[in-house]
């Protein structure tokens, strides 16, 4: 079991890292030949950075759009963010002071996360418009993350795993030293689902995470009159005339 999971962990990490790098490389290499920011848009680079910051922290556009999706989506993402930070304690020794500091918040954030996910799933089933646009994978993705969250919450609040052994196992993985992994069923499910999530990240809609940074309607500076914007293929097109 310890060895199997070690292999799966390394494989999933490799897929995640190289898969994401491959997609991001494609986004970088693909030119944006025209200026298409959704206006009103910032006229400076720092303005764009601020716009982007608001998009990824408070989901500004989503807030304008729909308060329910915003509420559930934000609860889920912010919860997940704290939970992920809290999990750093299993990969660091000694635990960084600020990770120790957010520990109590991180614990309850997992519940916020589940509430958000539940709301999103409910909307997907109940609202006719959202149901219409949902593929099986859209439900499964929610269920997958709910599964991860639920098993995590179980281990935090109900049936604790042998956390000392687990931490030792994880620290070992980081230095390619395979130690013993606890084998209680909740933990095994939790870790299996996490591995699955990591592996499908670069080939699924989870690409919205890097994608948002490359969205021309959000990341372009509104200055087409001041500065000529031209892509490499457009220059080639011009010189071929």
């Amino acid at each position: 079991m310890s060895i199997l999971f070690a292999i799966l962990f390394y494989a999933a990490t490799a897929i995640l890292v190289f898969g994401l790098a491959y997609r991001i490389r494609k986004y970088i290499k693909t030119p944006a030949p025209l200026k298409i920011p959704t206006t009103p848009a910032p006229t400076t680079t720092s303005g764009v950075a601020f716009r982007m910051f608001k998009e990824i922290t408070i989901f500004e556009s989503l807030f304008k759009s729909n308060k329910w999706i915003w509420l559930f989506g934000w609860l889920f993402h912010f919860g997940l963010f704290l939970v992920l930070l809290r999990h750093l304690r299993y990969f660091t020794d000694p635990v960084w002071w600020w990770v120790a500091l957010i520990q109590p918040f991180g614990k309850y954030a997992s519940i916020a996360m589940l509430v958000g996910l539940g709301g999103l799933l409910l909307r997907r089933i109940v609202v006719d418009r959202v149901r219409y646009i949902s593929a099986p994978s859209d439900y499964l993705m929610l269920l997958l993350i709910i599964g991860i969250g639920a098993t995590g919450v179980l281990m935090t609040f109900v049936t604790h795993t042998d956390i000392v052994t687990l931490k030792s196992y994880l620290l070992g993985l980081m230095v390619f030293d395979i130690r013993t992994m606890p084998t209680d069923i909740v933990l095994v499910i939790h870790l299996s689902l996490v591995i699955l999530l990591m592996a499908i990240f670069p080939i699924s809609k989870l690409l919205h995470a890097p994608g948002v940074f490359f969205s021309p309607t959000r990341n372009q500076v509104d200055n087409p009159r001041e500065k000529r914007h031209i892509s490499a293929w457009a220059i080639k097109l011009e010189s071929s005339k």
Partner: protein
Amino acid sequence: MAVAKFDVPELKEYPIIPKLQKDAMAHSAPYVAKEEFQTKLGYPGELIDNWKEVAIEKMGELTNKYRSLSVYLDSCVKCGACTDKCHYYLGTTDPKNMPVARQDLFRKVYRRYYTLAGKIVPKLVGAEDLTEEVLDDWYTYFHQCSQCRRCSVYCPYGIDTAEISMAAREIMDTVGKGQKYCNEIIGKAQVLGNNLGLPEPALIDTLEGLEEDIEDETGVQVKMPLDVKGADVLLITPSADFFAEPHIDGLIGYAKVFHEAGISWTMSSYASEAANFGMFIGSYENMQKLALRIRQAALDLGVKRIVFGECGHAWRVAYSFLNTLAGPFDFLDQNYPVPQHICEVTHGLIQDGTIKLDKSGNDHMTLTYHDSCNVARASRMGDTPGGQFTIPRDIIRASCNNFYDMPEHSIKEGTYCCGGGGGLLTDDLIELRVKGAMPRMQALKQVTEQNGVTHMAAICAICKSQFSKIFPYYDFQMDQIVSVHQLVSNAIVLTGQTDGESDEENSDNDDSKDAEQAA
């Protein structure tokens, strides 16, 4: 072909999100372009035999040329935020008019051929083969998108359905299934210089007639110059401004502003069109050809500035793309932005007191203002973000005593498309146009009832043509749509003016068909 009867949507007290009705607009598709219009633009005359392979290959090519397309196809999480944002969905209730569902017509094919999951487990991730039915769906529903970008405002990732509908149209053109309305017009504009195919003598005739009209009315000789070398300003305006109502009253307004400010200006018979339908079909090359005519005209006439008249998508192409497509414009006077919007010019002249306005000239109207989608969400005016909202409103407020905005959700960046943008302003799509106008009509009705609004001003040739056509379906009068510079024209005090009375021009000519061609 007679247009089938359809029900005009009922205007409710307040906006509601309608229930889905599958295939409610499945019957609506525009005429397919004939061979002559296709070949002129370098596309096959009819659907080619190996269309499927070519379409799939073109799709791959476009995802490598446009980052927007590439990122947007990957990023959608189907959250549903956009589902109630499209005026065509609100007006037709067809689920495929929800922005995400429209994108998915494209995305499901992309997933099938270009993603790992779509190749292995298509059913699971909603991937589908490209079939004749899918192509028909594309033709139907990518011609029910006016590329107004309202959905992109509300998407958490800024996914812009316009980018996807442009790509879909480009692919359809490439395999020989183009749209008649757009492609015929682009062909005309590339050869004759305007969407209508108006030759130079006809332009001269029209402009002379207008000069006489203004002199009769005001006693002042206001010029409408054409092809004048050495003028300071080259005015590029939609050709609808030359004859359609209320566009023409806007053109008279620009002329009076230039005259009163003592700015030497000219129009060009070579580039007598601001509109650029190349954008609607997603064709960089065709869009560039039209843009280069403007550059050429500016060089030939030796002007110092380029100013654009009232036209929505034209201003997007001008403001956002002209420098890219036809720049650099280092031969023009760098003290002025290149290009400038006529509203920026007029606004500046009002601010510094060069022109005087008598608001009572518009006392017979109570006004509201329709933000045109391309101006609102795809361009700017002035130095600060949002100038595209404040500058036209400042001009209207300076020109009249009675102005009220429509409800907040329906104006500025949230504005609803008129229903006729994006290459859909054609009679074969009249049902779509009427239904797509519903959200705007609802907002207009609200201020009509609450504030006694009598007229709506706009700065877009397509909006003006569309509203004058569809107003009667909603019990408005076709002349309730006015040009912003028509208001300026009614209010401006011309030096040496003999007659202060500027009665509302009324014209009963129904040139709407022609206006659609020119818009």
